[in-house]
């Protein structure tokens, strides 16, 4: 069985090469996130509260697939899609982010403010 497995593996290495793209490598930001970015938070107390309980866990640190707050280059192509599209992503969920991005009480204005804050790293 093992011999068969390895023969199949060898025979279709080309298929692997074509299909084995690692999704995590496709969205790496061109700039490495700065450590201090993890400390950013909105100045508005209500937005700060929402950001810290709903957004910061993921966007505060960032990953190759999750743009870090204040990583302007990472956010640039996202913002280029337009606020409506980004709001769609929040409402519907996107990748690992669940619908409404963990904020059950946010309205559209708050989501937009938070997206703008994360994209710029400041209010």
């Amino acid at each position, binding site marked *: *069985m093992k011999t068969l*497995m390895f023969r*199949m*593996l060898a*025979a*279709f*290495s080309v*298929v*692997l090469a074509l*299909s*084995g793209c*690692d*999704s995590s490598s496709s969205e790496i930001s061109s700039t490495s996130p700065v450590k201090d970015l993890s400390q950013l938070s909105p100045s508005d107390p209500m937005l700060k*509260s929402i950001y810290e*309980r*709903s957004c910061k866990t993921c966007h505060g640190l960032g990953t190759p697939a999750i743009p870090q707050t204040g990583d302007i280059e990472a956010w640039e192509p996202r913002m280029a899609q337009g606020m*409506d*599209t980004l*709001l*769609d*992503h929040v*409402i*519907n*969920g*996107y*990748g*690992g982010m*669940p*619908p*409404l991005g*963990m*904020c*059950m*009480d*946010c*309205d*559209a*204005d708050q*989501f937009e403010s938070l997206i703008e804050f994360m994209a710029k790293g400041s209010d």
Partner: protein
Amino acid sequence: MAKRRDVLTALVATATAAVVKPNLSFALGSAEAAAEPNKIIEKPKRKIPWRNWSGSQECFPAARKAPGNLSELQEIVASAPGVVRPVGAGHSFMPLVPTDDTVLSLGRMSGVISADPTTGQAKIWAGTTLGDIGGPLAEHGMAMINMPDIDEQSLAGALGTATHGTGATLGCLSTFVTELELVTATGDLMTCSADKNPDVFNAARVNLGALGVVSQITLNTQPAYRLRRETEWMPVEDILDNVESLAENNRNFEFYYIPFSGMGFTDVHNISTEDESSTDGIDQNSAASTLMSVRDWLSWSPKLRELILSGYMSTIDKEVVVANSWENYTKERNVRFNEMEYHLPRAHLVDAFKEIRTTIEKNFPEVFFPLEVRYVKSDDIWLSPFNGRDSCSIAVHRFFKEDYKAMFNAIEPIFKKYGGRPHWGKLNTMNKLELSERYDNWSDFSEVRRQMDPNGKFLNKYLKTLFV
């Protein structure tokens, strides 16, 4: 682990290339591509929906409220027109939240209020997510007695739906509650415990958010402990042959079965004094995507699919993780799904499981999510699905973008035949009559609910079908 998945991918590619692919467009689908959301364009400024985690439930509430303290919460509840529905993390698949009126989040009322190692009691804000409890309790040398396998739910939401972990000697989370504080329909505070308003206590420990808004919860805990978690793959028949002894001989035992593979894995936890350690493990989110790809490529040949999956799974090494309990119960689940879970008398597990497996593998080749089986100890809470009987829970899942109805409709009669009671937060079609026949205290709960909320402030459309 990535290398191991590559081998699986290669095997699948080989098998597929050897035969003409029956459905190229299907085969080209990937989990990554499927994760692209449906675009909803509503202009101008949008009235946005509330949605649950899987996206299967939604509503457009007139008001979304998030009080920052108890008095704000009381004021909101007292003054809100129409229906008020509390919302946690949106992890219920049933329509417990949807309302056109007010959705109320306690997300700002979060954290451990007090923790006393001498009594083992901890008072916690209802809006605290389960994942935010373990760390603060550990600072006091305390720990939750048991936990589910995800920890994103709010504490009040988890208790209100009888959310559970696994363990034949361990009850659902609601059994750890010693006292609850609720904001009633009039905005007043009510405290209940075994000694104080005991009927309300019996009803409120599993309450569906139908009695009031739970604001504070006191829980029994136990001294902080470390868990050794062992994950082991084996033929599902071997698991079923030993399932009772596995349940009896491990503090926490559950198993998963991967449809169309003949293989499953057991997950056991036991208290340990070993140093923290971890072997390589499978990322369950990547694994789900891989299983989806295998489904896409091989659903036309169940036998080949089983051959390849079982061959691959039999090579997976045992995984062992030793860590603090609160860091070792849960795993992140990023691949969304819809779920049906019923709780059955333990004696029916093997027969029910086999019927469900056969039904899926005979009729639903597109299924790739695992079946999950857990154990929960009996309790005496009025609307607990575990009331009066030690139970096993069987859960079936469908990827969130796929239609779950045909499969769940086919499986639910099996659950019912074996005396199952549905998880309150997971998809089921049981009506008031069916539920009332399965709960000895149904009328007791209904009466307490009527007394506490005679005008139905906390009843949305779904809850009205159950209690009006």
